[in-house]
Each structure stands twice: as C-alpha cells, then as structure tokens.
C-alpha cells in the first residue's frame, strides 16, 4: 500500500437542490502531482473548499495521512493537517505586507523578532521558487502588480513552520504569471513532490496539466469520471472525457426565422478592448451564446456592451442579472414594482406614475410569464427563486429594449421554469428581439443561433448553430498552453 496524503470516500455536498459533489472518491498519494480538470460546475471548487475545511461535507469521510477525521473539519483543522490552497481569487490581505501575510498563515510567527523571521521565511521561499522575483517582504500587497501578488501567495503556501506540509492545492496558479515564472513554478512543483509533498493542480491550460502532473482526474457533474496516469491522456482524450456522449450528438439546427444574414446588425463589440481583435456581431432576432469557463471575460463583455465601451449598439438594451440577490431584485418591493421599474418612462402621465397602467402591465406579464403568485402586489421575496427570475425576465421583456443581455440567469432555477423561459426567449427572438446570453450550462447553448467561446477575456472560437458541440466548446475553452 502506498502512503497517501489525503483520501476522500463518498464525499457529498449539496446546496439546496443543487448537488455540487455527488459522492467523490479521491486519493492523493504523498509525493504526487494530481491534475484536476473539469468544465464549469463539475465540482472542482466545491471539492477544494471541502479539502481546505471552509465547507464541511454532508456525507462521506476524509482521511488525512491514514487518520480518518472524526471531529469537526474546519479551516483550522485543515491548516494544522498541512493542507494549503492557493485560491484563484487571491486570498492575501491587500493592506498588509508580504511578510505580514506570511504571519497570518503561521501561528508560531509571534513574539519578539517575528517580523524578521517572517521576512526571512517568505524571502527564502520566493528565492527558491522564483529566482530574481524582485519582491521585498516589506512591500505592501496593494502596491504589487497582480503577477507578483500571485507569486507571493504561491510562495506563502509552500512555506513550512511547525505544521508539516502535506498537500498544496493550486487553483489556476499560472493565470496571472508570465511564461518564465509559470515555468519556474512548474519546475518547483516537480522538486517539491520529490520531497514527498502532494500537489493538486487545477488549470485550464491542458498542456500544463499534461506535463506537470503524474496522474489526472477528470471531474464532471460532481463526480470523478475518469482517472489515468498523465501519460494515458492526451489533449483530445482529456477534452473527450470532460464532455459526454449524449451531448455531442445533440445540436440545434433551427435558425430563427426572423434572423438572416441580411438582418440589421444591432451590436458590434470587441471583448478584448482592442480595435483589431475578434469581433462579436449580433443581428436583429438572433440569440447569441457566450460560452467558455466561468470568469474568462463573459460577464465583463456583457457589462462592456451595456455601457457601450468598445462596443457600438444600435438599440435600447436591458440587462438580466445572474446573481438575483445582489444585482437583480429590489427585495423590499412588490413583484409588480420589480417588473415595471424598467418601463416607468412609458407609464408616466403628467410626470407621475400612472398606477392603473402600472398594474395593467404587471398583470399582463404575470400571465405571459406565468409568474406563480396570487397577487402581484406581494413582496418579491414571497416568490420561489425560479419565479423571481421570471419576474426579472418580465422586467426586461416588458421594456422597450430590443437587445437583452443575460448574465447566466438560470443559475439555481428548476428545470420546469427553465423550459418555459427558453420557449419565451425563442418566441421573443422570432418577434425580432436579440439576446446575448452568457451561460455556464452547455444545454442552454442549444437554443442559440451562434456561440462565442471565451478564453482569457478574448473570443477563442465562433460557432454557428449547426456545428455547436460540447467537444468543440471544450476545445476552445481549454488552451494548449499559455499564449
């Protein structure tokens, strides 16, 4: 039996009705670099949060170094078990210096002269991983450019004080590093694993995964679906493993009747902010999908179009937020008010709101969207999540907007509601409205006339309805190596 650093047995985690982890069995051996890949929603980040103790699993067991965790699994427990994580969104305190951030990780760094010891600790590790890094331990994080922040955080994760270093999880560690420093990091991973530390590497750069890891696990729908030594995979087989057979055959071929190549162009945008980069074009009556891994510039592009920055838009717009609670509903208002807010201009008479017209509009959209409520004057929060989302759709569709921007609006919505809304989108498109739809769900792309795949903030592929396949989208989402 080989020594394992950490072992998960049947770990499950659900958020409401969403099963983020559906029984994960995972073994990471000491001295191994495990590559972890998967598309959006595969459960990678939930898995990481479970490993680092910020989420505790609903069921299943965690075994660290041969000892099954029986008590409470917490961030502190994970920390003292020697598990470290470099999160994709950095977790350094921007108002503290590099050395002070090292202190936050290590409890024994205290008492007289702690600052000197902290500086030496982090400086030595930075020198070891990134020779000629140019970071002073006294530099405040907020003063460092993003690449150096990431270097500081990576180095911090590998520093050792009293707790042993057992497992380091690196989530997209090279996303802000240049080619030279990324290479230095990958070389260091090799050295560190030779000393017996286990590493989990998550990256959208498949070349990086294939060259740095010993073994690769592919996750999908909250489970590990394939697991092989790194040599047993190549780019094509990895992409194939992330997708599913059922999807690749299915694609949508009905082009909107209203949209033809001769339809007027309503939106032209350059998502990368340059004048020469790949262009996004939206014609009247089209449903345009934005795909790719989450956080690769899709939401930013929607906001860019909405504020007409590096984008020319020839139509009124409306935005449907994905994060209902933060960006969507006015949670002290009634459903009716939430629906009509975008259309107030057309509802005013003599400068005041015509309450009868407001009521008529609300009731009309209650029926058209089938919002399930006895009374539109009820508070918006009395609705279920799916019906709140319908109210947000009603807000956009009731308005004069002819271009509707959607920021992954179906997150956490039940399938019944989804199907109703999909029909609504198609019929509105047939009536000449255009939709720009960022979605993290592959199935939703089947309702699109054209899909732009994003990678690193740029369009990496443009796919027409007939040739949309999960495999092609995965191919475009995951790059061979850093460009």
């Amino acid at each position, binding site marked *: 039996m080989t020594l394992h650093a950490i072992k998960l047995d049947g770990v499950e985690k659900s958020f409401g009705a969403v099963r983020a982890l559906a029984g994960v069995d995972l073994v990471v051996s000491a001295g191994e670099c495990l590559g972890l890949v998967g598309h959006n929603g595969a459960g990678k980040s939930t898995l990481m949060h479970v490993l680092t103790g*910020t989420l505790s699993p609903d069921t299943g067991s965690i075994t660290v170094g041969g000892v099954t965790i029986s008590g409470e699994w917490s961030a502190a427990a994970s920390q003292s078990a020697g598990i470290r994580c470099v999160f994709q969104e950095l*977790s*350094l305190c*921007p*108002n*503290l210096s590099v050395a002070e951030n090292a202190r*936050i990780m290590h409890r024994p760094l205290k008492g007289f002269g*702690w600052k000197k010891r902290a500086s030496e600790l982090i400086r030595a590790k930075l020198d070891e991983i990134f020779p000629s890094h140019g970071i002073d331990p006294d530099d405040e994080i907020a*003063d460092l450019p993003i690449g150096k922040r990431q270097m500081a955080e990576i180095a911090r994760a590998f520093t050792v004080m009293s707790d042993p270093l057992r497992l380091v999880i690196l989530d997209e560690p090279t996303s802000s590093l240049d080619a030279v420093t990324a290479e230095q990091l990958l070389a260091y991973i090799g050295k560190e694993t030779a000393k017996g530390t286990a590493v989990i590497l998550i990256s959208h750069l498949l070349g990086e995964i294939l060259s740095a890891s010993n073994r690769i696990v592919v996750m999908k729908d909250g489970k590990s679906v394939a697991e092989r030594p790194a040599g047993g995979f190549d780019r094509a087989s990895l992409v194939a493993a992330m997708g599913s057979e059922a999807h690749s055959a299915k694609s949508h071929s009905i082009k909107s009747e209203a949209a033809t190549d001769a339809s007027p162009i309503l939106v032209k945008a350059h998502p990368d902010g340059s004048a020469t980069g790949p262009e996004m074009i939206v014609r009247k009556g089209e449903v345009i999908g934005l795909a790719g891994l989450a956080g690769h510039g899709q939401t930013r592009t929607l906001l860019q179009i909405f504020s007409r920055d590096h984008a020319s838009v020839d139509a009124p717009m409306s935005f449907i937020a994905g994060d209902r609670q933060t960006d969507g509903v006015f949670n002290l208002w009634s459903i009716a008010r939430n629906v009509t807010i975008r259309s107030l201009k057309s509802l005013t008479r003599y400068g005041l709101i015509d309450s009868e017209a407001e009521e008529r509009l609300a009731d009309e959209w209650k029926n058209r969207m089938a919002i399930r409520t006895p009374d539109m004057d009820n508070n918006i929060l009395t609705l279920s999540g799916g019906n709140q989302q319908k109210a947000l759709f009603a807000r956009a569709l009731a308005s004069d907007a002819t271009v509707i921007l959607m920021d992954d609006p179906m997150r956490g919505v039940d399938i019944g509601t989804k199907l109703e809304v999909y029909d609504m989108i198609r019929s509105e498109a047939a009536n000449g409205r255009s939709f720009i739809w960022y979605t993290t769900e592959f199935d939703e792309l089947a309702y699109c006339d054209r899909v732009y795949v994003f990678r690193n903030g740029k369009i990496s592929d443009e796919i027409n309805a007939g040739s949309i396949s999960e495999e092609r989208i995965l191919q475009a989402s995951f790059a061979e190596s850093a460009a």
Partner: protein
Amino acid sequence: MINRRHLRAALPFLSLAIVLAATFYVQPRTMSYFGLNLMLQYAIPIALATIAQMFVITVNDLDLSIGPFVGLVGCISATLLLNDPLLGILALLACIAAYGLVGALIHIRNLPSIVVTLGLSFVWLGIAVLILPSPGGKAPVWLKAIMSFQMPWVPLPIIAAILIGGIVHVALMTSSFGVIGRGAGGNPKALQRAGWSMLKTKMIMFSIAGFFGVLAGLSLLGLTTSADAHVADRYTLYSIAGVILGGGEFIGGRVSPMGSVVGALTLALAGAFLIFLKISPDWQIGAQGAILIIVLAMRALITSGEARR
C-alpha cells in the same frame, strides 16, 4: 523618488504643523508652556476616543456610540468610582465587556455596525442620565492629580499624545496580533481560510475600543472635575474625523495610530484657533468641517495622482 504613500502618511503631520503655525501667528502668546498646555489639554480625551474609534474602523465597522459612552464612563467615575472604588472598577470593566459583546453581536448577526451603535448611543446616554440625572459628581482626587500634573519642560498633553500614539503603534502596527486585527479589515475571508476566528478577532478589537473609551472618559473627568452625561456627545464625530484626518480609511483595515492621535490634536487645535479668530462658537463646528474637507480633498488629490501613475 517620493513615494505617494509616504506623502499621504505625512499629510496629517503637515496639517497639524499648518494649524499650529497659524495659531502661533494669530496669537503669539500661545507659543509657551502654559499656552500649549491650555490649548491641548482637551486633546488627550479626544485622542483616546479617536484611538477607540480607530480599533473599530480597523475591522471595517463604525462606532456611533463612543461619545455618549465617554459621557457614561465620566458619570460612573464621578459617582460609583468615587464612593466605592471596587464597584466602580467592576462597572467600568462591565463597560469594556459590553463593547466586546457588541462586536460579537455585530459579527454573528451580520448587522450593520452603524445601526447597532447608533441605537446603543441612546442606551449609554440613558444609563448615564439614570446614574447622574443632573451635572455633578466629583472626580476622584488621584484622577485630578494625574490630569493636572505639570511636566517639566514639555507640556503633559504632548507627552501623552506621543505615549498613546507610540504604544498603540507598537501594538497594532508591529505586533503579531496587530497583523491579525488589520488583516481582519483587509480581507476577512483570507483570515478565515487561514483558520483564524473572525468572531474572536472582532470581540478583541471591540473590547480594546471599549478600553480606550474608558480611558477617554476618565481623562475627560480628570480635566472637568465634575461629570455630565452630555459632556462628550461631540466626541463621536471628533473621533471619526480624527481617524480619517490621520490617514485612516473607512474600509480595508488601513489605519494609522500616530496619524489618528495627530488628527485628534489638529481638531482640538483648530477649535482654539477659531476662537482666537473670534469666530462665534455657532460657526465653529462648520469651520472644523471645512478643515476636514480641505485635508480630505488634498488626500484625494494625492491618491488620484497615484492611480494615474
């Protein structure tokens, strides 16, 4: 190369120097041991209240109850502490513990600190009025003795300001615990991921704030020698203004103990300066506000230059 961050850190000291120079110019007689002592003695309680506020601002909260709290401490000290020292000390300790619990409440229930402390300000005021319905009471003799102590050569308020600023600087800016406190303001999530308890950190920071609030109340009573529940109502705004004048920011764990003390001194001096200019007290608070706006505008200019670079 002049670092703009250093320039910004120097701003509070620069503001103090300008206000001080202006005061000396308008009223040269203040340039003496006696004059400085008289002008600055009320800066001690303001500086202590400002430090209390600073600990709360460090963890991204705001304390709108510090003024009435200082008044309450004065009332307790002029009655309970005077007549029954043991009971008085217990009462003051209870005040500090109450602050810790407020920190816990704000964190656990995820309440806006502004609302909680605004409500509490009336609670403190109510208790103070219950203890001392009309102005009166008497400061303990030892307290009066401390506050009227005549230092040789250098006036007491200046020594006190350097001591307060220095001690808090060491505790918050250079100690290993201080790092956790500031980290809690900078990125609470990162702190939790590293296994620290935000609850404990907030409770400790609020308790320290309570401790300095008690010191502020005691020192104010030592100066006024008798107590009044309303005596420190203005301290709430003074303390916030002091922290901000001193280079602190409302969120992000960026504060400066030395700067805060200097900010408090500047505010106290500005009051004296305006009196010398024969500006009626009605206009004073507005004039102090104008000083605050000027300094903040200068800081914004420096910062925007930094962003452009």
